Protein backbone atom coordinates (compact mmCIF):
# COMPACT_ATOMS: atom_id res chain seq x y z
CA UNK A 1 0.00 0.00 0.00
CA UNK A 2 1.54 3.28 -1.13
CA UNK A 3 1.56 6.05 1.41
CA UNK A 4 1.00 9.69 0.47
CA UNK A 5 2.80 11.01 3.48
CA UNK A 6 5.41 9.60 5.74
CA UNK A 7 7.59 10.89 8.53
CA UNK A 8 10.16 8.74 10.28
CA UNK A 9 13.30 9.10 12.29
CA UNK A 10 16.22 6.87 13.22
CA UNK A 11 19.16 7.74 15.43
CA UNK A 12 22.21 5.53 15.44
CA UNK A 13 25.70 5.69 16.86
CA UNK A 14 28.51 6.31 14.42
CA UNK A 15 29.65 2.73 13.97
CA UNK A 16 29.92 1.03 10.59
CA UNK A 17 28.10 -1.86 12.22
CA UNK A 18 24.94 0.25 12.10
CA UNK A 19 25.03 0.78 8.33
CA UNK A 20 22.94 -2.34 7.77
CA UNK A 21 20.30 -1.01 10.19
CA UNK A 22 20.27 2.36 8.39
CA UNK A 23 19.88 0.68 5.01
CA UNK A 24 16.97 -1.42 6.25
CA UNK A 25 15.24 1.68 7.63
CA UNK A 26 15.65 3.65 4.41
CA UNK A 27 14.76 0.73 2.15
CA UNK A 28 11.52 0.00 3.97
CA UNK A 29 10.53 3.67 4.02
CA UNK A 30 11.20 4.16 0.30
CA UNK A 31 9.20 1.05 -0.57
CA UNK A 32 6.29 2.29 1.56
CA UNK A 33 6.27 5.51 -0.47
CA UNK A 34 5.92 3.63 -3.73
CA UNK A 35 9.43 3.75 -5.19
CA UNK A 36 10.48 0.93 -7.48
CA UNK A 37 13.31 -1.45 -6.72
CA UNK A 38 16.00 0.47 -8.65
CA UNK A 39 15.14 3.78 -7.01
CA UNK A 40 14.97 2.18 -3.58
CA UNK A 41 18.49 0.86 -4.11
CA UNK A 42 19.71 4.25 -5.27
CA UNK A 43 18.29 6.03 -2.22
CA UNK A 44 19.60 3.34 0.13
CA UNK A 45 23.12 3.52 -1.30
CA UNK A 46 23.14 7.33 -1.18
CA UNK A 47 22.21 7.29 2.52
CA UNK A 48 24.82 4.60 3.21
CA UNK A 49 27.45 6.80 1.54
CA UNK A 50 26.38 9.84 3.57
CA UNK A 51 26.54 7.90 6.85
CA UNK A 52 29.86 6.27 5.91
CA UNK A 53 31.34 9.71 5.30
CA UNK A 54 30.05 10.91 8.69
CA UNK A 55 31.53 7.90 10.49
CA UNK A 56 34.85 8.24 8.67
CA UNK A 57 35.34 12.00 8.49
CA UNK A 58 32.99 13.80 10.90
CA UNK A 59 33.50 11.36 13.80
CA UNK A 60 36.78 9.81 12.61
CA UNK A 61 35.62 6.30 13.50
CA UNK A 62 34.75 7.22 17.09
CA UNK A 63 31.62 5.12 17.75
CA UNK A 64 30.10 7.55 20.24
CA UNK A 65 28.87 10.13 17.75
CA UNK A 66 25.20 10.31 16.88
CA UNK A 67 23.79 10.21 13.36
CA UNK A 68 20.25 11.51 13.15
CA UNK A 69 18.32 10.41 10.07
CA UNK A 70 14.91 11.89 9.27
CA UNK A 71 12.74 10.90 6.37
CA UNK A 72 9.89 13.05 5.15
CA UNK A 73 7.73 12.10 2.19
CA UNK A 74 5.18 14.60 0.99
CA UNK A 75 3.85 15.56 -2.47
CA UNK A 76 5.97 12.86 -4.11
CA UNK A 77 9.15 14.33 -2.66
CA UNK A 78 11.23 11.94 -0.58
CA UNK A 79 13.64 13.86 1.63
CA UNK A 80 16.27 12.32 3.88
CA UNK A 81 18.11 14.68 6.22
CA UNK A 82 21.17 13.29 7.93
CA UNK A 83 22.63 15.34 10.75
CA UNK A 84 25.79 14.91 12.79
CA UNK A 85 27.71 16.89 15.38
CA UNK A 86 31.18 15.93 14.28
CA UNK A 87 33.85 17.78 12.31
CA UNK A 88 32.52 19.84 9.47
CA UNK A 89 33.94 20.12 5.98
CA UNK A 90 33.44 22.10 2.83
CA UNK A 91 31.93 19.81 0.22
CA UNK A 92 33.08 22.22 -2.51
CA UNK A 93 36.65 21.34 -1.71
CA UNK A 94 36.09 17.68 -2.53
CA UNK A 95 37.17 17.19 -6.15
CA UNK A 96 35.07 15.27 -8.63
CA UNK A 97 36.63 11.83 -8.71
CA UNK A 98 38.44 10.71 -11.83
CA UNK A 99 39.00 6.99 -11.92
CA UNK A 100 42.09 7.31 -14.13
CA UNK A 101 43.65 9.80 -11.69
CA UNK A 102 42.85 7.54 -8.74
CA UNK A 103 44.59 4.73 -10.52
CA UNK A 104 47.73 6.78 -11.14
CA UNK A 105 47.89 8.19 -7.64
CA UNK A 106 46.69 5.10 -5.75
CA UNK A 107 44.36 7.49 -3.98
CA UNK A 108 40.80 6.72 -3.10
CA UNK A 109 38.30 9.31 -1.92
CA UNK A 110 35.41 11.48 -2.95
CA UNK A 111 33.60 8.50 -4.42
CA UNK A 112 30.79 8.68 -1.88
CA UNK A 113 29.83 12.28 -2.58
CA UNK A 114 30.04 11.70 -6.31
CA UNK A 115 27.78 8.64 -6.03
CA UNK A 116 25.25 10.54 -3.90
CA UNK A 117 24.99 13.25 -6.55
CA UNK A 118 24.58 10.69 -9.30
CA UNK A 119 21.96 8.68 -7.41
CA UNK A 120 19.78 11.46 -6.00
CA UNK A 121 17.92 14.40 -7.54
CA UNK A 122 19.28 16.87 -5.00
CA UNK A 123 22.14 16.80 -2.50
CA UNK A 124 22.45 19.81 -0.21
CA UNK A 125 25.04 20.40 2.50
CA UNK A 126 24.28 22.85 5.29
CA UNK A 127 25.32 23.82 8.81
CA UNK A 128 22.59 23.96 11.47
CA UNK A 129 22.75 25.86 14.79
CA UNK A 130 26.32 26.80 13.91
CA UNK A 131 27.72 23.38 14.74
CA UNK A 132 25.65 20.59 13.27
CA UNK A 133 26.43 19.30 9.80
CA UNK A 134 23.51 18.32 7.67
CA UNK A 135 23.23 16.65 4.31
CA UNK A 136 19.81 16.62 2.68
CA UNK A 137 19.12 14.03 -0.01
CA UNK A 138 16.05 14.35 -2.21
CA UNK A 139 14.44 11.94 -4.64
CA UNK A 140 11.21 12.67 -6.50
CA UNK A 141 8.71 9.91 -7.11
CA UNK A 142 7.94 9.86 -10.82
CA UNK A 143 5.11 8.23 -12.77
CA UNK A 144 3.04 7.65 -9.67
Amino acid sequence: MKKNRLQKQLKVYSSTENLAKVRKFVKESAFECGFGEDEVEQITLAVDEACTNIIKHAYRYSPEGVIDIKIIFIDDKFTVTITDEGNGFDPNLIPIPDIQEFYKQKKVGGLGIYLMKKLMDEVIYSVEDNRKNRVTLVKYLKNS
Partner: protein
Amino acid sequence: MADFNVGLRDAGSVSIVELKGYLDAHTAPELENVFNKLIQENKYKVVVNFDQLNYISSAGLGVFMAYVETMRENNGDIKFANLKENVYNIFDLLGFPLLYEFYQDENEAINKFNELSKS
Protein backbone atom coordinates in the same frame (compact mmCIF):
# COMPACT_ATOMS: atom_id res chain seq x y z
CA MET B 1 23.87 -7.66 11.33
CA ALA B 2 26.13 -7.21 8.35
CA ASP B 3 25.74 -10.22 6.19
CA PHE B 4 28.96 -10.69 4.26
CA ASN B 5 31.31 -13.49 3.40
CA VAL B 6 34.53 -13.83 1.40
CA GLY B 7 35.64 -17.19 0.05
CA LEU B 8 38.96 -18.00 -1.56
CA ARG B 9 39.84 -20.87 -3.86
CA ASP B 10 42.38 -21.68 -6.56
CA ALA B 11 41.79 -22.35 -10.23
CA GLY B 12 45.29 -23.31 -11.36
CA SER B 13 47.48 -20.23 -11.00
CA VAL B 14 44.45 -17.95 -10.65
CA SER B 15 42.90 -17.12 -7.28
CA ILE B 16 39.14 -16.83 -7.12
CA VAL B 17 37.67 -14.49 -4.53
CA GLU B 18 33.99 -15.20 -3.96
CA LEU B 19 31.87 -12.46 -2.46
CA LYS B 20 28.55 -12.98 -0.77
CA GLY B 21 26.05 -10.57 0.74
CA TYR B 22 26.69 -6.92 1.48
CA LEU B 23 30.02 -5.18 0.93
CA ASP B 24 30.08 -1.84 2.77
CA ALA B 25 32.38 0.18 5.05
CA HIS B 26 31.79 -2.36 7.81
CA THR B 27 32.65 -5.45 5.82
CA ALA B 28 35.32 -4.02 3.44
CA PRO B 29 38.17 -4.78 5.92
CA GLU B 30 37.42 -8.51 5.54
CA LEU B 31 38.05 -8.20 1.82
CA GLU B 32 41.23 -6.20 2.46
CA ASN B 33 42.49 -9.06 4.63
CA VAL B 34 42.00 -11.47 1.77
CA PHE B 35 43.93 -9.24 -0.65
CA ASN B 36 46.74 -8.84 1.89
CA LYS B 37 46.91 -12.61 2.22
CA LEU B 38 47.09 -13.04 -1.56
CA ILE B 39 49.94 -10.54 -1.82
CA GLN B 40 51.82 -12.26 1.01
CA GLU B 41 51.54 -15.52 -0.90
CA ASN B 42 52.64 -13.84 -4.16
CA LYS B 43 49.30 -14.55 -5.78
CA TYR B 44 48.58 -11.68 -8.12
CA LYS B 45 46.14 -13.16 -10.63
CA VAL B 46 42.73 -12.61 -9.12
CA VAL B 47 39.22 -13.14 -10.37
CA VAL B 48 36.49 -11.75 -8.13
CA ASN B 49 33.24 -13.66 -8.47
CA PHE B 50 30.29 -11.41 -7.59
CA ASP B 51 27.62 -14.02 -8.20
CA GLN B 52 26.25 -13.86 -4.65
CA LEU B 53 27.02 -10.23 -3.89
CA ASN B 54 23.83 -8.22 -3.44
CA TYR B 55 25.20 -4.84 -2.54
CA ILE B 56 28.32 -2.71 -2.83
CA SER B 57 29.10 0.80 -1.60
CA SER B 58 32.09 2.99 -2.41
CA ALA B 59 33.97 1.52 0.57
CA GLY B 60 33.92 -1.81 -1.26
CA LEU B 61 34.91 -0.27 -4.59
CA GLY B 62 37.81 1.43 -2.84
CA VAL B 63 39.31 -1.94 -1.89
CA PHE B 64 39.74 -2.92 -5.54
CA MET B 65 41.21 0.47 -6.37
CA ALA B 66 43.69 0.16 -3.53
CA TYR B 67 45.00 -3.26 -4.62
CA VAL B 68 44.76 -3.41 -8.39
CA GLU B 69 48.03 -1.69 -9.13
CA THR B 70 50.05 -4.02 -6.91
CA MET B 71 48.55 -6.95 -8.80
CA ARG B 72 49.33 -5.40 -12.20
CA GLU B 73 52.88 -4.47 -11.21
CA ASN B 74 53.42 -8.17 -10.56
CA ASN B 75 52.06 -9.42 -13.89
CA GLY B 76 48.64 -10.03 -12.42
CA ASP B 77 45.32 -8.24 -12.36
CA ILE B 78 41.95 -8.10 -10.63
CA LYS B 79 39.22 -9.15 -13.04
CA PHE B 80 35.52 -9.06 -12.23
CA ALA B 81 32.99 -11.76 -13.07
CA ASN B 82 29.32 -12.68 -12.61
CA LEU B 83 28.07 -9.28 -11.47
CA LYS B 84 24.39 -8.70 -10.85
CA GLU B 85 23.07 -5.80 -12.87
CA ASN B 86 22.52 -3.50 -9.89
CA VAL B 87 26.07 -4.07 -8.65
CA TYR B 88 27.56 -3.57 -12.13
CA ASN B 89 25.64 -0.28 -12.45
CA ILE B 90 27.52 1.17 -9.49
CA PHE B 91 30.89 0.24 -11.02
CA ASP B 92 29.70 1.74 -14.28
CA LEU B 93 28.62 5.02 -12.65
CA LEU B 94 32.18 5.48 -11.41
CA GLY B 95 33.83 4.61 -14.71
CA PHE B 96 35.36 1.30 -13.65
CA PRO B 97 34.88 -0.37 -17.06
CA LEU B 98 37.59 1.97 -18.40
CA LEU B 99 40.23 0.41 -16.20
CA TYR B 100 38.95 -3.01 -15.20
CA GLU B 101 37.87 -6.06 -17.15
CA PHE B 102 34.38 -7.40 -16.54
CA TYR B 103 33.22 -10.87 -17.58
CA GLN B 104 29.85 -12.56 -17.65
CA ASP B 105 31.37 -15.74 -16.37
CA GLU B 106 34.21 -16.67 -14.02
CA ASN B 107 35.73 -19.12 -16.56
CA GLU B 108 36.04 -16.42 -19.19
CA ALA B 109 38.09 -14.35 -16.77
CA ILE B 110 40.28 -17.33 -15.84
CA ASN B 111 40.84 -18.14 -19.52
CA LYS B 112 41.93 -14.58 -20.15
CA PHE B 113 44.74 -14.99 -17.59
CA ASN B 114 45.71 -18.38 -19.06
CA GLU B 115 45.80 -17.05 -22.64
CA LEU B 116 48.12 -14.27 -21.55
CA SER B 117 50.56 -16.58 -19.79
CA LYS B 118 50.77 -18.83 -22.89
CA SER B 119 51.61 -16.05 -25.32
